[in-house]
């Protein structure tokens, strides 16, 4: 019997929701897949954003909430979500979500709005070890937003830049200091593309430093909103010396994991 489950990832910048369907639940033949997805800005109201994201995915499938077998919640706003059957941390959800999106992954790098997580997983998608950034938002989506702003650009424009080419040195990983470096580089006439590549390297350096606290194992997969800025996974690849895979629907890995884990 076909079962439908929802997952909500209440992130700091964006709230994501998915509905998954599963044939042969509870059997080895089970192949859950994302039926539909939605992304809404979290803003100052994570609970409202979660409701909105869930309403969107339900309406896209023409479903009512009662038709869902279960709902899982994750993300920084997870504790405040109501009407969910299971609340799980984003670390576990990303690991599990990636396991189904890219089963060969043994290391997951998730870079979201204000968090960086490096997660080592086993062959079942379970977390073996993890590290997260502490206090400092350097290298996160928020960091890139500030830098894009300093360059008079938006994140979509940043996302189209490739790493190949000359990169300006950005010595600081601190958001405030890096912003002032960027402003100085702009003032000194450094080409914008070089500054952007320098920023990509600075983010990759920070992630490399965090990853060094774990023992990184291939294959490496990247998730989260920042994975869509193609220069970042490219820079991480060079810094780690390992290929970094960005699975399709990488930004929804957390919501997917929440939906999958809500079945338990």
């Amino acid at each position, binding site marked *: 019997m076909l079962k439908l489950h929802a997952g909500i990832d209440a992130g700091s910048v964006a709230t994501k929701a998915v509905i998954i369907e599963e044939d042969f639940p509870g059997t080895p033949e089970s192949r859950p897949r994302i039926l539909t997805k939605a992304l809404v800005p979290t803003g100052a109201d994570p609970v409202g954003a979660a409701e909105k994201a869930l309403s969107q995915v339900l309406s896209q499938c023409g479903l009512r909430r009662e038709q869902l077998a279960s709902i899982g919640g994750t993300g*920084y706003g997870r*504790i405040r979500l109501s009407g969910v059957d299971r609340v*799980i*941390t*984003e*670390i*576990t959800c990303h690991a599990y979500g990636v396991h189904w999106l890219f089963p060969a992954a043994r290391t997951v790098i998730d870079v979201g709005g204000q968090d960086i997580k490096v997660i080592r997983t086993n062959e079942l998608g*379970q*977390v*073996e*070890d*993890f*590290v*997260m950034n*502490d*206090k400092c938002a350097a290298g996160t989506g928020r960091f890139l937003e500030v830098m894009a702003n300093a360059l008079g650009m938006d994140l979509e424009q940043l996302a189209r830049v490739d790493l190949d080419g000359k990169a300006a040195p950005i010595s600081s990983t601190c958001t405030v200091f890096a912003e002032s470096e960027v402003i100085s580089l702009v003032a000194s006439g450094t080409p914008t593309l070089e500054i952007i590549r320098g920023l990509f390297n600075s983010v990759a350096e920070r992630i490399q430093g965090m990853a060094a*606290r*774990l*023992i990184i194992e291939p294959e490496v997969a990247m998730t989260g909103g920042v994975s869509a800025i193609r220069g970042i996974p490219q820079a991480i690849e060079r810094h780690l010396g390992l290929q970094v895979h960005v699975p399709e629907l990488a930004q929804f890995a957390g919501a997917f994991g929440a939906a999958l884990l809500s079945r338990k």
Partner: protein
Amino acid sequence: MLAANLIQKALTSGKVAKLLRSKTAHAVGRLGVALSTCSPQNAYQREALAFVLKWTAASFVSKRPVVWTTAFLPSELSYSLNAIPFMPELAAGVAAVAGISPVALTAAQSQGYSSDLCSFHRCLVGLLGMELLPRPDAVITTNLMCDGGYRVLENLAAEIGVPHYHIDLPLGTTISAAEEDYVAGQLRETWERLKAQLYPSTLQTDKRFWELSLKRAMQESAAATSYRLRINNLRKQKPGPWRGAEALSYVAMDLLAMGCQEGTAYFKALESSLAARVASATPAIPDETYRLIWLHLRPYTDAQLLNHIELNWKALIAFNDYSYVHWAPPEPDKPWHSLASRMLRHPSWGPAERRVALVLKLIKEYDADGVIQFDHWGCRQSTGMGSLLRQALRKNGIPFLELDGDCVDPRSASAGQHRSRVDAFMEVLEDAKTARRN
């Protein structure tokens, strides 16, 4: 919230500074404890409170000498000279629990102390400025585990204008007899010099009196050590008899209560309480599901974190490394070598392998499912070796969480971030347990 605000206001307005120096206030406090009743299973709490009140009163209002020391200096040194050991770093922890550490930290910064300095030490500087610490007659430091504390106390001794003594510990990979002699010699010499400073009119004929006093302190220390060994054995029971959240708050007693009758009474009461709980099968937490080893100190500004771990996740913090007894009961006739050996053999001193070996031993003895190390900002001796520990634990299949935070400064850490990390770690333990069951 209102109560917390009132306490903070009283502490910062100077009223508490006055109360601390009021004989009447201390008498009322001690009478209150004497009249209070508690069940035999919690008798140690009253002993601990009586201990704290007695020595606080003695520090602030009596004429007994007060000796400031760094946290890992054996308290026997002071008790044997009828002096009161006062550890300002512990006072910083108390200030954090009381919610006034931010005020003290800001005050320290305005006195020119860099924010890069450990918050325990910045906090104690601020507390001194707020007149919340007793004035010392002397300061004794050691570099055991912490260089920052020794430098700060040395600096404060000069500022206050009291003598400073220092016990230098060599950082060797092995412990030789020469090293033990070196440390024992410094302890003996410091004791003699402190005695001469505190009691300048002491006659040669009093020598026997002080030797006996030293012997008594070491006998108390030996008795306390025996109780502590039994306490640590009782904590191995499943389900565990003592909550880690409370044990981590009583680490101060482990540091401060060695070598005096009142301290021994506390350890004795704690041993009896835990034995009674074990005998009556009274678990520390209901439905104990996981057992953890906690390394280093607890965040004193966030009581909820440990409650969340122990009560919501049913994960008992079965043991904490700073309560471990790594020494044999001291020989009262060999005081200096007993104390030197204890200091030199501290598991967090010397090569990192020593601490790694201890953690692996604790996991086995306490049947722990995982290990959490609280990485306090500024405590390099534990944070610096996190990676070695992680590798060793990984090799043994033990989940490990390094929780970056600050024991004293609530502004330096986010409760939400801690909770996310703890929840994710507990999910790892949950998966591991499920896998074992299947």
